[in-house]
Structures are given as structure tokens and as C-alpha cells.
């Protein structure tokens, strides 16, 4: 069996004083999509933050493309090829839409001076046509759907091999969610591996090969998404 792109083994992480992730283990192969589900407080966001280096107190064993990840600072982890679309989108409010994209592009260029980038701003605008007319508007002046598109585009400009998405569809209309998943399918087709949090279990199962259900910081259910009954997932979800 080939080495998985991301291997998480016995990860323990804290949210403040609270042990929010208690020994979580899973694997993601290159090019796959893994759905992470679980109710509020299950530890999904803390898990993602630990993988990105935002929680430096996390312990356990995390390997990305065969290299150990824990302990590296956030700005170094993104250079290795992991980008996060954070919960709440976290658009820079004092930067325009275009500047939000450029700030990611600038950093990626700085880190890899010679290699031609896979993603460019033009390609992001082509992927999300709704962003182009708003490119000169302030980051806080656009709709929630546009903000999510911008957050995904911004993460892509970091040139990730693994894209983590925390709450893809939270608070967005069904039309926008459909557009977002169409774009995610195109991103997958480019070879980017996806690990995403999705509250809509039906959609999570449909879009992923594998599934991890967290409950109070532990893995309650994991395995293939295909053929999984909704009832079984619901039982794991609510504990």
C-alpha cells in the first residue's frame, strides 16, 4: 500500500484548557476527499487548527507526505502544501477582494521563486465568476457566499496539495452551496486532496470517499462513505 498523503496518529490537542481532541487517528490518500462530521464542540476546528500549526501545544504523530508536521509554525506548514479555509471565512476586512488574493499569491511567490504557480488570480476568478465583478470592493463588503469563494480562492493561491475546509456551507443558500461544490469538484480534478467539515451529512457522504465522525474529541466512526446508511452516521453523530 502506498504511503497516505496525511497520516494522523493519536492526535491530542487543547482548546484553551479543554482537551478538545483526544487521540484522533485517520489517513487520507493523495487525491481523495475526506469528510469530517460531528456536532458543535466535537473538536473539528481544533483538529484543523492543530494540523495547520495554529495550536502549538498539540501532541501525537502527524505526517504529511512522509514528513513530521507537529511543532512546525503555521507559516511553514502552508509552504509544505497544507492550506486552510477557516470557519467564518476570515477575510481581511481592510483589504479589497483582489488584495486578499494577492496577499496569498505574494507569499507563495516568495516561497517558491522559480516554480510556475498552479493557481493564479485569473484562474481563481475563472473558477468563481461571481468574484470578478467584486474584485475592487472591500473584503467585508461582499456577500457570505462571495466571502467563502474568496476564502477558497485565497487558500488555493498558497499552492496546496491538501486543502482543509472548515464548514463549507454554513449559513449559505442552497444555490451558492451547489456552486461551491461544483468548484470543489474542479479543484479535486486538479489533484488537490480535500478534507472538509460539512454539516449536511447527505452532501458529505455524496462528495467524499471516506468519512470521519468525531464525538467529544474522539473518532466515533470512520471508513468508506459509499454504502454508509444515514441512520448509522446519525447514531455516531449524536453519540
Amino acid at each position, binding site marked *: 500500500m502506498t504511503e497516505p498523503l496525511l497520516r494522523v496518529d493519536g492526535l491530542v490537542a*487543547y*482548546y*484553551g484548557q479543554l482537551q478538545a481532541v483526544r487521540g484522533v487517528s485517520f489517513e487520507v490518500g493523495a487525491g481523495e476527499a475526506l469528510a469530517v462530521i460531528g456536532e458543535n464542540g466535537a473538536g473539528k476546528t481544533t483538529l484543523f487548527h492543530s494540523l*495547520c*500549526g*495554529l*495550536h*502549538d*501545544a498539540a501532541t501525537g504523530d502527524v505526517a504529511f507526505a512522509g514528513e513530521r508536521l507537529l511543532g512546525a*509554525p*503555521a*507559516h511553514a506548514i*502552508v*509552504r509544505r502544501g497544507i*492550506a*486552510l479555509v*477557516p470557519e467564518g471565512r*476570515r477575510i*481581511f*476586512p*481592510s*483589504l479589497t477582494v483582489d*488584495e486578499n488574493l*494577492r*496577499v*496569498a499569491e*505574494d*507569499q*507563495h511567490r*516568495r*516561497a517558491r521563486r522559480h516554480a510556475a504557480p498552479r493557481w493564479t488570480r485569473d484562474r481563481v476568478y475563472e473558477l468563481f465568476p461571481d468574484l470578478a465583478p467584486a474584485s475592487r470592493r*472591500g473584503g*467585508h463588503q461582499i456577500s457570505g457566499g462571495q466571502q467563502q469563494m474568496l476564502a477558497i480562492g*485565497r*487558500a488555493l493561491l*498558497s499552492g496546496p496539495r491538501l486543502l482543509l475546509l472548515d464548514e463549507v456551507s454554513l449559513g449559505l443558500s442552497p444555490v451558492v452551496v451547489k456552486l461551491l461544490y461544483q468548484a470543489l469538484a474542479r479543484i479535486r480534478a486538479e489533484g488537490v486532496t480535500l478534507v472538509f467539515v460539512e454539516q449536511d451529512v447527505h452532501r458529505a457522504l455524496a462528495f467524499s470517499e471516506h468519512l470521519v465522525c468525531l464525538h467529544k474529541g474522539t473518532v466515533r466512526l470512520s471508513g468508506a462513505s459509499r454504502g454508509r446508511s444515514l441512520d448509522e452516521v446519525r447514531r455516531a453523530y449524536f453519540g
Partner: protein
Amino acid sequence: MQLVETLINGCLLGGLYGLIGLGLSINFGTMRVVHLAHGDLIVLAAYFLVVVLVPAGIPPLAAAAIVVPVMFGVGWALQHLIVQHSLGRQLDRALGRGVLPPLIVTFGISIVLQNVLLHYATADARTLQSSLASSGVTLGGIAIPTVRLVDFGVGLGCLGLLLLGLGRTALGRALRATSDDLDTARLLGIDPRRMFAVAAGISAATGGVAGVLLAATSTFYPSTGSEVLLVAFEVVVVGGLGSLVGTFLGGVLLASAQLLGAHFLGPSYALLTGHAVVLGVLVFRPQGLLPRTAP
């Protein structure tokens, strides 16, 4: 006519005040650190010019051109070697040490700088001897000292350069992103330590320019840093934290208030009038003239 002259002089002196505030504003905007040694860095620059460079035979303009990059280096090094460690895990918000350690550390730097200046440069009053200080222009019967025109022009020029640099360059975008949301900036590959050191360097470089102007405009002592810091504080409070244009306007308002106070009430009331205006702003518009518009 005398009132108009006072107003114009106040506005012009405001250029220097605004410049003094800009450094504090940049530091706070990027790191959320109130740099209590900012006034002393400005005075350090003034001493470096008057006590080291000019006696060495370097012409004042060339000396000024040396002061600014040297001060950038001083600010960068202080941040990298000392202040950064007081921030510690502030980078990790959940485990942040809070705002007190950097306050204490910068206060310590302030005390050290003042005493080093006192030791090596004595407590004598200093000023930059130049033809600039004594010359003036008369426009339509209004007398304006040349040095004030220079204060305003240079202050405005620095504001313009900063706005251009922050608005149009990759470094500027990274600094603004860091200021907006530290964690998200880190997620895009921005090293916060580098940004903080650069911001501290830029802040100290504006302090270098302000130090040169201070030396040309007035006399100074090793302890002048505390007074300068007070001006910087008041300017930033009046202007609104985090807005560079607001900070500059705050400088103009504060200086005008001081000179108008001196005009109507007598020279000894200048500082008091300035403080009264700051109090008024705090009571009626605590967010300042031009607060940051972003949420």
C-alpha cells in the same frame, strides 16, 4: 491677522506632531503593542544627529539621510532581540500572556535609553545649529519660520510614502493582513515575527525623521523622550487608533490647539490647552477623528 498666523503655524507644527504619532500608530496597528520607548527612540535619533554625525563633519542633510536607515535597524533589532520575547505566546491567542509584558519591556527600554543618553551625552540642552532654525518667510504679512514649513512638508511626505508603501506593495499588503487578522495571515505563509520586526523598523525610521526635525525645531535633553511620547499618545488618541491619516490630522489638531491656547491664554497654557482638547475628544468622540473603518 495674528490669529491666522497662529493657526497656520499650528497646522505646520502639526506635521511634526503627526509624524511623531505615526510611529506609535504603526507599532500598535501591527502588533497591538504600545511602544513606550518610541519617544526615546526619537530623541536617540536627535542625539545621534547632533552629537555624533554633525560634529564628525557630515553636512546636516547627509547626516539626516544616515539617521533614518540606522534607526530602522535599531527598531528592527530591538523588536527582534527584546520586545519579541515579551510577546512570547501572544501569537497563540489561547495562551497569550496579555498586554502587560510588552508594556513593561518597552518601559524598561525607555529607562535604559534615557540613562545611556544622560551618561554619554550629559544633561546639557542640545539643538541642531543650522541656518534653517533662524530663517523665515513672510507671505502676505504672515511670518512663518522655515523650519515649520519643513516640519509640515516632511511629515506630509512621510505620510504619503507610508500610505503608498502600505497600499501598493506586497510588504504593505502583508503588514495590513497581519494587522487585520494575525492567525489568518500566518495561514497564508506570513511569518509574524518578520512582520513585527519590519513594522518596528518602519516605526523607528519615522522616529528617525521625527528626531531630525525635533533637533532642528527645538532644544532637547535626555529626558525629552517622555514628553515626546505624551505628544505621540495624544496625537494617536485624537486621530483614532490604527488610522495613519487620522493620526496625522490628530497631530495638526493638537499642535493648533496648543498654539491657539498660547495665543489666547498665554504661552504657559499651550500644553494645558492641548490636554484639554484630548480630554474633549475622549469624552465626546472616544473612537477618535478617523477610526479604522473595518470591523
